[in-house]
């Protein structure tokens, strides 16, 4: 079930000239949301741009008594819609629709004894915080592999640390963490893990997710990815957000990622058919 809330913006934290975190007063959505689900945000009440934008639910916002009062999204300012969201002011109201899509947990229920390793690139961090809270509540071991171009792309890693995750940070320019791609420490740690079973959860640029899926396949770690195709409606109405995945019949089919995803078992994804 999805609800549409004309939500007051509670906070707008600019993280840099590119990134901000917008908090919305939307208790109904916060109560219903499960880890990895998304919302469709309408950047304006007018027609420019016309369509909503999909965003992973980043934080569940809570009051002093820990009651859910809203959700936040991690926005990257890349176009007309996201630039409006970057400039939005507390007190403004924007329409947000959700929660939508399947949860990480719908794809892989927590396998007993598995460690959860999260692999995030840039704003791909967004769907992991709710999963980390869930994992922490279960007292299961977790790690965050988090990569960006440079230090200014890496945010909120400490939130994960506070929840008990061990961190592996990478930057391509070496300004923070290890220099190089996030798959570097991931591969090393996978190889060094001995017999411990690990589940990989990945979200970020498509080439990164594809590389993680390949590592997961060759190093025997079940892998779940959260894909981010262009979406029209988020409700299954328009058939624009399709991704090609292998079906129960083992043949590849286009499926709507708003309904069957955005989270998929990486084994099913036909990577060469993904638009970038």
């Amino acid at each position, binding site marked *: 079930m999805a609800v549409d809330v004309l939500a007051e913006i509670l906070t707008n934290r600019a993280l840099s000239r590119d990134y901000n975190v917008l908090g919305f007063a939307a208790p109904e959505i916060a109560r219903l949301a499960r880890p990895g689900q998304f919302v469709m945000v309408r950047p304006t009440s007018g027609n420019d*741009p016309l369509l909503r934008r999909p965003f992973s639910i980043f934080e569940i916002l809570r009051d002093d008594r820990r009651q859910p009062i809203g959700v936040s999204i991690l926005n990257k300012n890349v176009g007309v819609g996201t630039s409006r969201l970057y400039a939005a002011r507390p007190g403004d109201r924007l329409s947000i629709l959700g929660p939508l899509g399947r949860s990480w947990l719908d794809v892989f229920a927590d396998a007993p004894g598995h460690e959860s390793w999260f692999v995030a690139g840039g704003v791909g961090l967004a769907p992991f915080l709710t999963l980390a809270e869930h994992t922490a509540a279960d007292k299961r071991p977790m790690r965050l592999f988090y990569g960006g171009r440079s230090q200014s792309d890496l945010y909120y890693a400490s939130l994960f640390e506070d929840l008990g995750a061990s961190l592996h940070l990478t930057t391509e320019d070496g300004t923070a963490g290890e220099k190089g791609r996030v798959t570097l420490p991931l591969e090393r740690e996978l190889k060094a893990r001995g017999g411990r079973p690990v589940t990989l959860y990945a979200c970020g640029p498509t080439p990164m997710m594809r590389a993680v899926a390949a590592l997961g396949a060759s190093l025997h770690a079940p892998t779940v990815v959260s894909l981010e195709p262009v979406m029209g409606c988020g409700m299954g109405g328009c058939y*624009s957000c*399709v991704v090609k995945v292998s079906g129960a019949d083992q043949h590849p089919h286009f499926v709507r990622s708003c309904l069957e995803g955005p989270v998929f078992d990486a084994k099913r994804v036909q990577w060469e058919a993904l638009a970038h």
Partner: protein
Amino acid sequence: MARDLSVQIGSLTLKNPIIAASGCFGYGLEYAGSLDVSALGGVASKGLFLKEREGHPPPRIVETPSGMLNAIGLQGIGVHRYVAEKLPELRRLGVTNIVNICGTTLDEYCEVARVLSDHEGVAALELNISCPNIKEGGIQFGCSLTGTYDVVSAVRKVTTLPIIPKLTPNVTDVASFARASEEGGADAVSLVNTFLAMAIDVETRTPKLSNMLGGLSGPAIRPIAVRMVYECHQAVKLPIIGMGGIQSATDVIEFLIAGASAVQVGTANFVDPFIWTKLTDGLADYMDRHGIGRVSEITGSLRKNT
């Protein structure tokens, strides 16, 4: 005052004149978890061929000023899976199903129509002869007067369900296609489907859609669609289902005044899936303010400028 939102489209009675447009509301069940789909005037299903279709590779949509282009390529489950997997639940929910049917040949249209006629729960058939996004089928009939007549009269012979050809705006004189539909035995016509269009990424000099061309929908097309509904209303006696860019009750009423008996809403549902009650409430409010008892009093009620 007593006012009645129901409308008559030939032999078909709709609770209200506001229908979800084909290709913009899945098969209807997608929305059933979030809203009462049976409260809509009707649901025009995603276009159905006899067999399943994969559709075009992404990217399938791109936004343009006050609108969007789509080239979905009629991905769909085919009529047999529709009647087996969707129709029973739609029927249980009490949805008024206007099934949008496609074909690459006359025989295919007829076969799809036959399958649907054999099942309970189908209120009407909308003949998609206007999809601009696939090469074979549909548009080749919809862009030719004899093709339009042939499809309508062929389907007429195999079903007693109301048939509603959906017209393309990508022709010089849309009214002549409404006339060909009337002569072929249609019960109503619906218009408009999307306008053939194109968008280019100037940095890469590549088309923004994988299919290169797509159909323009949304508020950008509304004034042209209103004009076309008006022209058809002047030309035929058939009831008209108007659409193109409707976003508000005012837009609904504009189409009714131009000559529509009912309307469909597509793109605006993507923006606001809960738009339906807003539109019916706004229409009811208008009728109350103007002392109108029945929606049909609004249809074709355009006054001359003085």
